């Protein structure tokens, strides 16, 4: 059995820190977020640091490439909290010279006041959840900021950080391809070098999910119209020098989110904080880890020794499925030899040829890539390749 001892190096090594609180829950969001009045930031620093302190020996000698503060709304973290976690991480791992430390921020005025503090704590990249450039739609998405506030916060972020990205959600209720094109042009005129553009997805267990199930979520664009908007997004962004490098992410070459690339290139990442997932390689085996989801349960579990609720080893086919699933999201695709070594078997040639004949994938220099036509139907491609 070839072990996976060094396979993670193809993706790198990062740390994900989950901050589970929001000021208000957005109706479309199915991430692990909670609304609460009182947060004892010192308690959270202590717990994060306890989690970092139990880092397995096998992971300690590595160089850390990235840290990502995600949520929830990490811009509700006190800059001292962020600084303390970064310092604790530095005690454990040597930081790469070009380490990327990102933090997700709400584009509100209060948060903007903390940006300088985050910079001083070591954060060097901000990702802002602007979501829409139209007040009516922001309200419908349940966002608590206005476009004006968002633009002001964005300007402050730009003055503090070299790298600022923002998110927009499209294929919203009542949105036409023309509406989106106008909004996207505005976004591109603001953007520095990175944009995340997500199609609105109705998830079960969210307020939108419930409304959708009851037939109350009206005017959602049809699949065809949403597909048109996706295509439009690819074309316009590419024309502005910000081509897609992943299904929903666009950047000037070299400005890609390195932390997210660790996921997509199937590297190793340690996940701490409530509901954080991790993938870590120890002794040649890839493990999936999860932590307790609710803040209270996680804090209590940490105080008793570990916040981890699950650590399971992935077998060859599971790890290979994840490698493919994540890797084909990237325009750069997946190395077929790497796939074969993780899976202990090559991908089925017949399926590959069928998909190539349909124009869904290309294979060159032993790399398998989903084409511009294939990426919007990636789930179908994966079903063909993995389910057979």
């Amino acid at each position: 059995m070839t072990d996976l001892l060094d396979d993670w190096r193809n993706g790198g090594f990062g740390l994900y820190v989950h901050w589970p609180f929001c000021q208000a829950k957005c109706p479309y969001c199915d991430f692990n977020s909670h609304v609460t009045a009182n947060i004892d930031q010192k308690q959270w620093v202590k717990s994060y640091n306890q989690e970092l302190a139990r880092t397995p020996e096998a992971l300690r000698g590595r160089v850390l490439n990235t840290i990502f503060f995600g949520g929830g709304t990490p811009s509700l973290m006190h800059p001292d909290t962020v600084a303390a976690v970064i310092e604790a991480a530095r005690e454990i791992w040597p930081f790469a010279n070009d380490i990327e430390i990102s933090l997700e921020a709400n584009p509100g005025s209060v948060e903007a006041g903390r940006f300088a503090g985050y910079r001083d704590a070591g954060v060097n990249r901000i990702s802002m959840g602007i979501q829409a450039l139209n007040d009516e739609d922001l309200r419908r998405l349940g966002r608590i900021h206005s476009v004006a506030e968002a633009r002001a916060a964005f300007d402050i972020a730009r003055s503090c950080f070299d790298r600022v990205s923002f998110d927009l959600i499209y294929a919203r209720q009542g949105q036409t391809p023309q509406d989106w094109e106008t909004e996207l042009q505005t976004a591109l005129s603001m953007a520095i070098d990175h944009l995340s553009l997500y199609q609105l997805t109705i998830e079960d267990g969210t307020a939108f999910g419930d409304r959708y199930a009851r037939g109350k979520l009206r005017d959602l664009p049809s699949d065809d119209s949403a597909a048109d908007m996706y295509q439009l997004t690819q074309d316009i962004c590419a024309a502005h020098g910000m081509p897609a490098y992943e299904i929903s992410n666009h950047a000037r070459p070299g400005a890609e989110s390195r932390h997210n690339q660790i996921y997509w290139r199937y590297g190793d990442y340690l996940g701490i904080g409530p509901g954080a997932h991790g993938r870590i390689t120890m002794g040649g085996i890839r493990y999936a880890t999860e932590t307790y989801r609710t803040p209270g349960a996680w804090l209590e579990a940490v105080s008793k020794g570990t916040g981890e609720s699950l650590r399971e080893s992935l077998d060859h086919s599971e790890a290979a499925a994840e490698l493919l699933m994540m890797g084909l999201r990237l325009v750069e695709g997946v190395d077929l030899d790497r796939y074969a070594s993780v899976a202990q078997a090559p991908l089925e040639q017949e399926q590959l040829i069928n998909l190539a004949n349909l124009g869904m994938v290309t294979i060159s220099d032993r790399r398998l890539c989903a084409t511009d036509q294939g990426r919007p139907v990636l789930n179908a491609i994966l079903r063909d390749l993995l389910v057979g």
Partner: protein
Amino acid sequence: MTELSKIRNFSIVAHIDHGKSTLADRLIQETGTVQSRDMKEQLLDSMDIERERGITIKANTVRIDYKADDGETYVLNLIDTPGHVDFAYEVSRSMRAVEGSLLVVDSTQGVEAQTLANVYQAIEADHEIVPVLNKIDLPASDCDRVAEQIEDVIGIDASEAIQVSAKTGQGIHETLESIVKLLPAPEGTRDAPLKAMLVDSWYDAYLGVIVLVRIMDGVLKKGMRVKFMSNDTLHHVDRIGVFRPAMQVVDELGPGEIGFLTASIKQVRDTRVGDTITNDRNGCEVALPGFKPAQPVVFCGLFPVDSAEFEDLRDAIDKLALNDASFSFEMETSAALGFGFRCGFLGLLHLEVIRDRIEREYNIELITTAPSVIYHVYMKDGEQIDLHNPADMPDMSKVDHIEEPRIKATILVPDEYLGDVLKLCQDRRGIQEDLTYAGTRAMVVYDLPLNEVVFDFYDRLKSVTKGYASFDYHLTGYREDNLVKMSVLVNDEPVDALSMMVHRDRAEMRGRAMCEKLKDLIPRHMFKIPIQAAIGGKVIARETLSALRKDVTAKCYGGDATRKRKLLEKQKAGKKKMRQFGKVDIPQEAFISALKMDS
């Protein structure tokens, strides 16, 4: 051994829901045959499916001891007959095993088509018939009107009809008295060779096949060697008894009595309903009249959704066939569906019952192909082929002509729905034979092709009449018509399991409907898919399913890897429910849904 004059054998004729089973329960209860604490609703319907649907599939029997007002104790044998048209032959045999019938009619509803069919069977068997008007506790009850209807429609005297509420128990005593007073005692000779009719049989895991018999002449005793006359098989009787309704062993059964025997028989197949049982030596010379081997009329393919379950399906079918001689099967291979079985049934209800039992009792998910009938295909070279499966249709250029089975259908319907019923029958190529009225209800008789009825005729009839119509049919014979095989091509590949025989004039309409349906049922793929209906090489309808354009997870952070992988694993299970035709996955429900005609 009971004296003939103290025996009364009877059946109950009733439409579904008119209270047959409840009445039987009350008779059993009133006579103290079953202790109250052992009573459960509808004692006689033992199979889950029978209970759920409120229908009887196997004949059941119960022996009741009744001390009548005249001071004598009588033995009453009730045979609960299957009430459905699919089991008409079984009903006719049960009728021959008894001397009288209670005709139970819901006094809030009136006579239904199915009641008619069964009451005619009773009349044909020379029964004394006692009308019983049930549900008189309900406000809508109208005994005078219903009694009049019984006289008009059936032509028997209903002036003495007993008014009963099986629910409250009112009239139960009178019913028992009428059975004793009005129904004739059986006849028979004790000293003659044994002559018993095989009324029904079923498989019991402990006792082997249990055979329900009515003794006509002679005596049946434990230890006897008996002969089944239809197939000349010999059996050693190891147990005889009666149902009360639990099995109770007795020493012997004499003329006029109804009971069971076991003889270490392993297959129900070897025990044919209507057969005559006699002594091994010096038996009776002439068998009872009317015996007929079972004849399936409706055929369909049953395939496991998960092809790995083929052997399990074979097991299930083998076991069910042990208990059901009327169900035929042979292995079938479909290019589309893999290995399965082509099965023959007495009718649609029989098909549904078997399918439900396989799915429920054996936990195997099934793909059921379109029900078909047997066509007589006459070849130009003079050969005649019985076509059970449209997929086997020979090349049309070699076919001289095709005949299809026809039925005579009787439908009773409140007159406000008559127009819809006539339209439905006309749409299904029916020829009207009769239309009469009984009060506000119309009785229509149609000559219809069986293939227009086997699929969803009954569902459509129920829906256009809001459930108020009743329907019954019997086969009348074969007639030539302009029939063609319509094949369906998905992505230019023929899907054999969807091919069907249709009338030429209706082919375009059916083809269009089928293509439209399939377009909705087949999920979009990464390429566009033409869906066509064709007769021979000629395409008569076409739809195009456009290519999938959007199916991707928009946001996929690290944490989502597990969830996404689990989703794919779930899709792996879901994919088992699809069948692949060339490059196209077709969901299993498409095979049945595509055939349903909506209007």
